[in-house]
């Protein structure tokens, strides 16, 4: 049994400790907002916060999350509330297929937690590990800056 906190709730998971955290979240815990994109840490679709740090859940084994706090896109804001970046993404309509958005929200939320008034360069740097093929990068940058206002 591996014990960890996910979006503020403490959970116990019986999977093999080597199981990728992403599979645990999606398959065991039903938190499908975190997405598979590449499986090797190169695209950002699977980003979660692990003790507040942006982490690729696809190449992080469950064992590495033992006793730690995981936050997924579903846990960015309590209940039905929206995180400021979620709200700003809707206001800026910063999405097309939307598959990349969960990971971007995680990167952006981590940035704003550490740096509530980031510069545009800081936003770009914070999101550089997130790929988007539909090309909404500039809208996302605008949204994150707006969320920081």
């Amino acid at each position, binding site marked *: 049994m591996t014990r960890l906190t996910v979006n503020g709730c403490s959970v116990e998971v019986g999977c093999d400790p080597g199981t990728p955290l992403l599979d645990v979240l999606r398959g065991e815990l039903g938190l499908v907002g975190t997405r598979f994109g590449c499986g090797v840490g190169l695209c950002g679709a699977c980003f979660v916060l692990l003790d507040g740090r942006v982490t690729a859940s696809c190449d992080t084994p469950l064992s590495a999350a033992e006793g730690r706090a995981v936050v997924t896109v579903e846990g960015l804001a309590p209940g039905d509330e929206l995180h400021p970046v979620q709200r700003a993404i809707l206001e800026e309509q910063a999405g097309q*297929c939307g*598959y990349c*958005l969960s990971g971007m929200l995680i990167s952006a939320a981590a940035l704003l937690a550490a740096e509530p008034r980031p510069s545009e360069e800081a936003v770009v740097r914070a999101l550089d590990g997130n790929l988007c093929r539909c090309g909404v990068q500039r809208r996302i940058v605008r949204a994150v800056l707006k969320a920081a206002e």
Partner: protein
Amino acid sequence: MSVTVGSDGLISVRAGKVELGQGVLTALAQIAADALGADLAQVRMLPARTGDGPDEGFTAGSMSIAHAGPALRADCARVREAFTVEAARRWGVPPDAVTVRRGVFGCGGLTATYGDLAEAVPLDREEPPPPGAFPHPPPPEPVVVGVSVPRLDLPDKVVGRPRFVHDLCLPGRLYGRVLRPPSPGARLVRLRPLEGVRVVRDGSFLGVLGETEPEADRALARLRKAAEWEERDTLPDERDLHAYLRTGPHETIAVLTTTDNPPAEPDTGGSPTTGEPPAGTVHTATYSRPFIAHASIAPSCAVARWNERDGTLEVWSHTQGVHPLRTALAQVLGHPADRIEVRHVEGAGCYGHNGADDVALDAALLARAAPGRPVQVRWSRQDELTWAPFGSAMSADVTAAVDATGMVCSWAYDVWSQGHVSRPGHRGFPGLLAGAHLEQPLTYPAAGEPSPASGGGMARNAVPIYDFPHLRITGHRLLETPIRTSALRSLGAFMNVFAIESFMDELALAADLDPLAYRLAHLSDERGREVLRRAADAAGWRGPGQGLGFARYKGNGAYCAAVAEVEAEHHVRVRHLTIAVDVGQVVNPDGVRNQIEGGATQAASWTLKERVRFDRRRITSGDWASYPILRFSEAPEVSVELVEHPGTPSVGAGEAAQGPVAAAIANAVAYALGVRVRDLPLTREAVLAAIERD
């Protein structure tokens, strides 16, 4: 009938077009709401499925709004009329005395909602009344068409709600993985037996099933070790795509000839032409683009279930066409099409014929081995980047003769390419990847050329928009190839516009003329002129230094002009793109902007970075390190100017920017560096090579 009205007032519209990330369902909902005189909030767009709703073929080619819009508008108008007539009957007034606004019918002080009238209007029980069956009440004023209403699907996506086919959780789900051959020419020769792994094999098609995703992944890893392949060197030399594309056999496509006096004949293999030598000074240049991958962030995914009891197959897919996919599955599986139901579920952002249909067949083949249980198959990143069809590499010669003032008197264009369409059903073939690997193979043939009526493939935008007096445009489609290609956003237009518009700049420069003025001097199309001017004004056109690119997509679609500002030393960076676009009547202005911004960003990525890599045996660009795409730090700012023409037919925006952006960047780079790179992508190596060559 694709429209139903519930007594709760909800109006459900079963669309024939599918959401691919482009926001089409939102735009169609706007059209439906206005035609119904309904509130947007009461309109529900239902995803396409084969069992009901219109068969509108593929959602492709920027034709969704142009094709589905009018049909949907007409359907909804008939529904509105039927309800109007019912309200009039109830109130004993003539139908044209009844108005409708935001879903409420009214006459004098009387009102009734769609919900109130629903039971009395039998929409789903019989065919809708034919148009003109009763006096036409005046259509309501447009309320939401032309307005930037927010995307209907985004709220789910920002909070991570299940929305994609990857998230579909059906009871008893199994996970499937497919082991693709290591190279296009590979054949399975031996498979060592595997204990405790549920293997599915049919010829060289190999897959595994697992109760959980990690179990399926572990099984796949074991299967990989147990499989022995025989590989062959079948691929061309990636460093000489010009030679590869120009070595036949070819089909010759006579795109357009307006003269028997073309400027000069590029070397097409020795057939001399008739006609006089051209008047004027002859310029010529050769351009190319490499193979390009779809490279969606979401891997292709599908779910399939065989129901033993009634012999039906259900498939959940992010295909571009539920009906063509059903036909193709029926062909490969030897199963009657009317026993197959394909339902659309959102998936990867879609930029053309990607792996969506292929993975649906994978899922069906694996699910056949586990009757009654839904099997979800998801491709790996490597499958995605190496096995989904590519956009074809292309090579083109442009030759123009110009008079003493530099004006073009004749123009010849030859383009060599593989075909650009091999979608399910093209020329009757299922066109599904796994079909080629089965014991009884149903191989996909080399890609073909879409009809001129649908805009052509390699010939798309090969005809310049300018008023050139003499033209000869010829395509040469490679008939045999080991590399699978099909439709990728804008098909041949990306390359053709890049080549034409690069060459226009080369001619302008040779004549010492401003590139904008040079284009305008050759252009009588008024809407085109306006778009060019608007882009130039918005960008504060300063002449060479900025780069310009322009086209009308497919010759009959959206006009688009792009101005690029770049920094180029040894590494090219696009700082800003200013784009003016005329898509006719705009249904959703922000939706159009979003499509143009996204298309432009993707086109910048293709232009600067992208190239499918291979050696003589394998496709080697199987991850994001070997197939890099544009990152946040490289994404240009994009400003969009909408040139509105209310009342003109709406045309799509999704593909309009691809070619103009490539040309604008290439032209800006040429001024910045003083040398011209004619082979895409404009990587550091390509730039250095061009500087050296100079």
